[in-house]
């Protein structure tokens, strides 16, 4: 069953979208929120648990001080007030991803509240600063990971039973909730994407999380509603989950605008429900209906004493915050000598950090930008993945450029090296060796190839002898073809002109 949609422009002509974004950040502490179990990603199932995170009788939680510090730093970076006293609360629900039958979270006393952050949104005519207000950021714990067995595709729908791994249960999470984002109009999906990208940059700068969407250490739920244009009201919203990449944040928001407009436009009403984003088909599917049954019976966690950060502590954390993303961008642009357009394209391609790391690994700013924005952005686009999840590291990109600078390969061969590295054939040097991509620097072989090209193209050679140097291109092409691209085109040109002088 597929939902009716109206074209995006039509939807916007009739309705104003309002969004609320809930972002969960998994902190990179080495232990869990309330126990000393390790948090390493990718461990064998159920090898990182203890009586506390398994919710066994008699176990007692103790708060990870580093996680509280990280939460405060995130709050400060989002211009929030920090609670001088706050408690944890039990969110009671029955779902096997939490073995305790409750999630330890915060309810009406979040550690951070009333903040804002300014995000840079790409628009048709340049970029625009959009202020997103932050309602709260609170501390909680992650849930276990369920594997749904039977049914069709490992999803909840139609599963026969589920298998749960509690390694992730208890990993510190910070949930950041925005106030309703209104007035973004047609830019709403772009604002959502820019906000999540901005948060990621901000959190990376703080060093408190890996914020890798593909590994789930940054997750975004998109709440969206429509109201008749100009009324300033809030309509009934849906909450879209399972939005696991920056691209999907934008696509999911766009899809919900078109879907809800179709329902409202034909006189229907929106069901308040959870929906699931489908990465492959690009649609949202109905999940659970939200209702009064969402009664979590929150109450203060009796096993954890309140958190009361002193003013001195908060001030010292504030004093050591890193530079905000916008300041960092301005600094990098100056250091790298990028034009506004180059900088905008780099940020738009979500490659700022990648370019920075590539430069740190030794590449020139322009070379780093060139490879990420041309070669690698194109491939990410073709494969429909975020550029950061391509299986190549900034250090490898820098190494490929170094090989070019050393004269070992040329740009054309470099593209084949990218192919090889991305195909998992190893490091750039291994790919060059395995594929035999090194430039032929043997002057004898090169000279022979040039002689052969001249002999095979007497007409062209004649023109060059008469001074029509532009004709050399045809001979260079012939030599490069003969050498299967593995020659330095500049040197070939020199040889041709020498021989035909």
């Amino acid at each position, binding site marked *: 069953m597929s939902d009716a949609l109206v074209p995006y422009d039509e939807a916007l002509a009739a309705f104003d979208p309002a969004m609320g974004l809930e972002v969960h950040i998994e902190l990179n502490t080495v232990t869990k929120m309330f126990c000393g179990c*390790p948090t390493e990603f990718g461990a064998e199932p*159920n090898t990182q648990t203890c009586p506390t995170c398994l919710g066994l009788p008699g176990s007692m939680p103790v708060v990870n001080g580093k996680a509280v510090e990280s939460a405060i730093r995130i709050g400060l970076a989002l211009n929030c007030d920090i609670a001088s006293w706050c408690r944890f609360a039990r969110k009671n629900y029955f779902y096997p991803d939490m073995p305790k039958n409750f999630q330890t979270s915060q309810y009406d006393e979040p550690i951070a509240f009333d903040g804002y952050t300014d995000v840079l949104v790409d628009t048709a005519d340049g970029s625009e600063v959009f202020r997103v207000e932050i309602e709260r950021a609170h501390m909680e714990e992650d849930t276990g990971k369920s594997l749904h067995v039977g049914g069709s595709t490992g999803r909840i729908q139609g599963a026969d039973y589920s298998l749960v791994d509690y390694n992730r249960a208890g990993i510190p999470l910070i949930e950041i909730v925005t106030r309703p984002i209104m007035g973004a109009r047609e830019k709403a999906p772009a604002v959502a994407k820019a906000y999540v990208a901005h948060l990621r940059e901000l959190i990376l700068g703080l060093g408190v999380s890996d914020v890798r969407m593909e590994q789930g250490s940054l997750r975004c739920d998109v709440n969206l509603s429509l109201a008749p244009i100009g009324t300033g009201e809030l309509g009934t919203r849906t909450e879209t989950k399972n939005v696991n990449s920056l691209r999907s944040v934008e696509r999911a928001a766009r899809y919900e605008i078109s879907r809800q407009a179709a329902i409202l436009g034909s006189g229907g009403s929106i069901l308040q429900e959870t929906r699931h984003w489908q990465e492959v088909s690009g649609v949202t599917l109905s999940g659970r209906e939200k209702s009064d049954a969402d009664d979590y019976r929150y109450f203060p966690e*009796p096993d954890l004493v309140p958190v009361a950060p002193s003013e001195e502590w908060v001030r010292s954390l504030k004093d050591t915050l890193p530079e905000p993303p916008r300041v960092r961008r301005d600094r990098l642009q100056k250091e790298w000598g990028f034009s506004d357009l180059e900088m905008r394209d780099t940020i738009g391609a979500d490659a700022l950090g990648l370019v920075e790391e590539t430069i740190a690994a030794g590449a020139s700013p322009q070379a780093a930008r060139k490879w990420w924005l041309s070669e690698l952005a194109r491939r990410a686009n073709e494969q429909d993945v975020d550029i950061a999840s391509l299986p190549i590291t900034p250090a490898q990109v820098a190494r490929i450029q170094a090989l070019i600078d050393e004269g070992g390969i040329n740009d054309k061969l470099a593209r084949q090296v990218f192919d090889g590295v991305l195909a998992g054939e190893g490091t750039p040097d291994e790919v060059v060796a395995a594929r035999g991509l090194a430039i032929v620097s043997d002057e004898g072989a090169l000279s022979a190839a040039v002689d052969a090209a001249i002999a095979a193209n007497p007409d062209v050679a004649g023109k060059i002898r008469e001074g029509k140097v532009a004709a050399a291109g045809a001979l260079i092409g012939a030599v490069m073809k003969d050498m299967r691209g593995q020659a330095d085109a500049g040197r070939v040109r020199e040889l041709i002109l020498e021989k035909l002088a």
Partner: protein
Amino acid sequence: MPDIPGASRVEISRDEVAHLADLARIDLSDAELDALAPQLSVILESIASISEVAADDIPPTSHALPLTNVFREDVVVPCLTAEQALSGAPAKEQQRFAVPRILGDEQ
């Protein structure tokens, strides 16, 4: 009893008890609901009588000890092996806890 709003006049309806039982996954018969609702009301009223002695300047107490900021260092301690973790599981498969089909949604 004096008529203090929100204090002594606490009542829990039969429907509310049914709702709570549902949330707590407790299966109660009609007879049990009839019997429990008035009993729970009595308990709530007894608890509510505390509000009568607590003036507005006394905040609700959640913790008996005047402690704050009890933190743990972010240092790994040995955890259970998968075998130990799964030893109490009624069913297991692929080194994971096997649970009945989940009808609801993830949180």
